[in-house]
């Protein structure tokens, strides 16, 4: 009997269990959650050519930066604006309160124009320096605008020659307001009235501040998950995860006893490592992603089943415990390798061709396969060896044979 090995074995087991007990849940919760879990809106926008402007790389870059400016003004935590392909932009708005309004705001071209009485465009949104929503003493909801120095000059000229006449302020070719000019305005400031609510005034201000999109942008796809559905999905998948892992743990204990116990310990280590890697990769956890984790747990256990079955065979053929274990690991390795590589091929294809949640699933599955090769083979072997070398439990039956 070698107590040294047995102590080492115990230390490893207790260490893994302790780390899992303390860190598993906080770690799982600290991984960035997808919109399907935390609620929010996912929008896909597509730019199309207009008469004046073609969609090119430069136009798309401007679209992205303008959309970013608009979204940042909404005050959300961690919104995402991402270009996809030549003409598409993906926008993710976690926890957005009024998704309908946000979507509407994203797709607006927001081209602002000032016209004189005869309809000539004198100024555009480019001449604006700032725009702010405010309420005046009379309770009117206004957007106060400030022009650039060039814009100030143009606006002064416009108002000077329009005294007593109408001018019009248009947004995307629709008249916002067309006041009569009482006197020339040289100070470079003006207000736009006629907003129904302060929220509407604020949205208009944001649109004006962030500038007009250079091309036409259409909303191709929107997906909104309400916060309560997200919460519900999160809770249920957590439950499924716990039950799934419990079923596997009990199964392994019943069929492989001590070997099963060690496989369970390394399975817990596997889940820890998988969560840790997802966190390090700054991956987003989605519902299919959780399914991927549950599935890869099944695959991690499969490697152990292969090894232990091989061990049983070798042991029954008359090998000693140690020799049978060694043979089990080395012979099962080729099998595990070939079978896992083929599964990895499927995961890789999913990753490169899938989008959004499907991609998240592929990442967890692929990571799971790679990590399981390490935990289910290397770690299990190391820990089992220690126990066998300690010579405390010599009966092959207790190892599942």
């Amino acid at each position, binding site marked *: 009997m070698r107590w040294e090995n047995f102590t080492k074995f115990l230390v490893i087991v207790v260490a893994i269990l302790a780390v899992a007990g303390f860190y598993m849940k906080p770690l799982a919760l600290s991984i960035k959650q997808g919109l399907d879990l935390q609620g929010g809106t996912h929008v896909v926008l597509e730019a199309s050519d207009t008469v004046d402007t073609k969609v090119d790389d430069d136009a798309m870059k401007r679209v992205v930066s303008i959309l970013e400016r608009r979204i940042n003004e909404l005050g959300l935590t961690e919104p995402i604006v991402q270009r996809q392909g030549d003409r598409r932009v993906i926008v993710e708005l976690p926890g957005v309160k009024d998704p309908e309004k946000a979507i509407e705001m994203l797709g607006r071209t927001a081209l602002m124009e000032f016209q004189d009485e005869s309809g000539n465009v004198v100024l555009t949104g480019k001449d604006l320096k700032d725009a702010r929503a405010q309420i005046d003493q009379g309770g009117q909801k206004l957007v106060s605008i400030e022009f650039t120095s060039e814009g100030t000059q143009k606006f002064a000229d416009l108002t000077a020659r329009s005294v007593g006449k109408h001018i019009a302020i248009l947004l995307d070719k629709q008249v916002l307001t067309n006041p009569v000019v009482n006197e020339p305005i040289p100070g470079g400031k003006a207000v736009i009235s006629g907003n129904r609510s302060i929220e509407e005034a604020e949205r208009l201000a944001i649109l004006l501040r962030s500038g007009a999109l250079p091309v036409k942008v259409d909303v*191709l796809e929107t997906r*909104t998950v309400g916060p309560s559905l997200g919460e519900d999905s999160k809770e249920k998948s957590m439950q499924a995860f716990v039950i799934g892992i419990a079923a596997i743990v009990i199964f392994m204990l019943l069929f492989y006893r001590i070997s099963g116990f060690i496989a369970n310990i390394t399975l817990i280590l596997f889940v820890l490592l998988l969560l840790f890697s997802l966190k390090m990769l700054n991956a987003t956890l989605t519902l299919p992603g959780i399914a991927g984790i549950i599935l890869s747990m*099944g695959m991690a256990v499969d490697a152990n089943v292969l090894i232990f079955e091989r061990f049983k065979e070798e042991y029954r053929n008359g090998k000693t415990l140690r020799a049978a274990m060694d043979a089990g690991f080395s012979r099962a390795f080729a099998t595990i390798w070939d079978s896992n590589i*083929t599964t990895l091929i499927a995961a890789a294809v999913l990753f490169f061709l899938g989008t959004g949640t499907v991609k998240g699933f592929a990442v967890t599955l692929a990571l799971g396969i790679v990590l399981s090769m390490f935990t289910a083979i290397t770690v299990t072997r190391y820990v089992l060896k220690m126990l066998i070398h300690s010579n405390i439990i010599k009966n092959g039956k207790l190892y599942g044979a």
Partner: protein
Amino acid sequence: MKFDIVHKRKWWFLLSALFLIPGLISMAIQGFNLGIDFTGGTLLDLKFAQPVAVGEIREVLKDYQLEGSTIQLSLTGQETKANNVFIRTHVLSEEERRNVLGGLETKLGAFEVLRVEKVGAVIGSELTLNAILALIISWVLMIVYISYRFEYRFAFAGIAALVHDIFIVLGVFSILQKEIDATFVAALLTIVGYSINDTIVIFDRIRENLKTYRKSDGLAELVNRSIWQTMTRSIYTVLTVIFATAALYIFGGETTKNFSLALLIGFASGAYSSIFNASQIWVTWREYDEKRRTEKRIKGE
């Protein structure tokens, strides 16, 4: 001698055919219940404060010429009313959608928006194309890998078993008219990954046993032995993944139900086809090739 699986292979092929044919007929006749991910459209998933009936919803939708939409309640038991409603329409503009939601609220009372999705038709057709492309690419890559590590007959036999599993799942989804969405594609590819994994384990054993193979033993006998040597593993493994997916199916949320159902069917079919179809195809093929080679040799002499 254990039960001779290989010898009875005609029966296994027949059993597979029995499962495949109704599915194929259903696919041809009624097709699939494609979700908006594929067809494009708008999905409203609403939870009303007061239970509502399908008829009431349809009545409101009439005002917007949307009475032809799919309306589903998540019902528990015998009631005809439920709080949770799914409505699937053609693509609604942002404004149309606002109007419909407003109309529902004034006529049927307050609700909470669980999910609102709008998918343009362009995205839908891209998804279908991508899904088919993904399946084919994964098959080609697997054939290449297996041909390299084993031999081409194993590769094609394995892929044939895979195609079988995919069609079983497609068939069941067509017969039950379960909704197919983007995650279904992920489920199919997972089944691909799992089923081939299962098959490879048996092939691997055949490959190992072939090293000590003597012609007098008979190929069928060798394959039968290989299948039985890996049988416990095959059963245990399918059990563990089925535990895990069943947990997801039973306890997971509504949104992953169809996903885990596809996985459950696929895993079960994958386990079956690995044990009863894949190696049998290989044996049949190899025996046929050997017979032809001997015939050629005899003729040549």
